C-alpha cells in the first residue's frame, strides 16, 4: 500500500510540475512577445501586460521550485533540521542598521526625484518600484518574515499580491471616464464651486 501510494504521489508530482512549467513558459513567452508587439514599451498598458504575465509565470513556478527544493536541488542552503518552535531571534544590530540605511537611502532618492521635478509618469514608475523594494525590506527583515518558515510567506504574500493586482482592473475605466469627459465637454470652470 505504502509503495503504491508513493508511486501515485510521484506521478501526481510529475504531472502537476509539468503543467505548471508549461503554463509558466507560456506566460513568459507571452510577456516577451508582448514586448515585441508593443511599439512603445513604456506605456501603462504595456507595462501592465508585462507585469501581469511575469507575475503569473512566477506564480506557476512556485510549485516546481518547491518540489525541486524538497528533492534537494538547492540543498546547499539547507543546514540541519529546524527546531519545532522557533523562539530564538536571528539578525544582528549591524544587519538592522544596514536595512535602515537602505531604507533611508531610498527615501532620499525619492525626495530628490521630487526636488528635480522628474516628469510625472517616470516618477510614478520609479517611486512605485522603490516603494515595493522598501516594503519588501521591511517585511523581510524588520517583520522578520525572512527568518520564518517558508510556508508562512507562501501563505501570506502571493495571495495578497494577486488580490492587489486584481484591483488594477479598475484603471481602464478611469481612463475611459477621463476621455469621455474631455471629449463631450469644453472645459468649464463653473462645475466646481
Amino acid at each position: 500500500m505504502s509503495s503504491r501510494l508513493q508511486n501515485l504521489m510521484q506521478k501526481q508530482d510529475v504531472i502537476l510540475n509539468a503543467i505548471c512549467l508549461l503554463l509558466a513558459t507560456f506566460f513568459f513567452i507571452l510577456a516577451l512577445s508582448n514586448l515585441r508587439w508593443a511599439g512603445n514599451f513604456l506605456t501603462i498598458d504595456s507595462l501592465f501586460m508585462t507585469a501581469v504575465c511575469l507575475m503569473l509565470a512566477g506564480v506557476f513556478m512556485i510549485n516546481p521550485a518547491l518540489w525541486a527544493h524538497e528533492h534537494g536541488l538547492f540543498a546547499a542552503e539547507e543546514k540541519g533540521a529546524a527546531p519545532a518552535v522557533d523562539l530564538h531571534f536571528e539578525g544582528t544590530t549591524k544587519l538592522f542598521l544596514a536595512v535602515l540605511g537602505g531604507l533611508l537611502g531610498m527615501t532620499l532618492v525619492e525626495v530628490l526625484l521630487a526636488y528635480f521635478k522628474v516628469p510625472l509618469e517616470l516618477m510614478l514608475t520609479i517611486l512605485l518600484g522603490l516603494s515595493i523594494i522598501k516594503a519588501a525590506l521591511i517585511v523581510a527583515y524588520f517583520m522578520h518574515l525572512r527568518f520564518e518558515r517558508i510556508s508562512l510567506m507562501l501563505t501570506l504574500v502571493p495571495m495578497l499580491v494577486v488580490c492587489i493586482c486584481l484591483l488594477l482592473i479598475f484603471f481602464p475605466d478611469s481612463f475611459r471616464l477621463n476621455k469621455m469627459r474631455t471629449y463631450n465637454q469644453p472645459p468649464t470652470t463653473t462645475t466646481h464651486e
Partner: protein
Amino acid sequence: MSTHAEVETAVTADWGGGTLPYRIGHKKLGMWLFIVSDALTFSALLIGYSYARLASNQWPTPFKFSPSILFSTTMTLCLLSSSFTMVMAVKASAHGNRRAARRWIGGTMLGGLLFLVLHLYEWNHLISEGLKPFSLPKEWLERWPQASPLFGATFFAITGLHMFHVFTGFCYLGIVALTIRKRTHEDVEVSGLYWHFVDLVWMFVFPMIYLLSVDFKG
C-alpha cells in the same frame, strides 16, 4: 490501512507541523492575518485615489518642495527610525532583557508621537488654507481651474486612516510597555509586527500622496 497517516507523512516535508503548522504561535499568526486584511484596505484606498486622479481632468499639485515635502520627509524619518527602535526592542526582549525592551519601546513611542504631532500640525495648516474634504481652497482653484475637488477627500481619508493606525499603535505599545513584566516575548514581537506594518503603509502613502503632488512649476 492507514492511508491518511501516510499521506500526512508524505506532505509533512514542507507543510506539516501538527498544531503549529507555521512554527509560530497563534497570536502571531492572527496578527499576520490582520495585517494582510489591513494591507488590502490600504491598497484599495490608494487605488481608489489613483482612480479618482486618473479620471480627473486636472489634479492639484500643491505641495511645494520647501516646506511641504521637506516637512513630510521629516515625518517619514521619524517613522523609519521608530521602526528601527522597535526592532531593537524585539531583539532585547528575545534576549530576555525586558528593561532594555521597555526603553526601546519608549523610543518607538516617542517617534510615533512626533509623527502624530507633525502630521496634525500639517493638517491644521491645510485646513486653515481652506482645504476641505469636498472643496479646494480658492487660490488652488485659480491656479488649477478644472481641478477635482476630490483631492481633499482622498488626502484626508488616506492620511487620516493612517494617522488613526499610528495612534492605535501608540496606545498598543504603551500598554505593552507598561505591562511588560507580564508579557511574553511573543507579545512584544506581535506589537512590533503591527508597528512595522504602520511604517510599511507610510512607505506607499508618502510617495503617492506627497511626492506625486509636488508643485511641478513652483
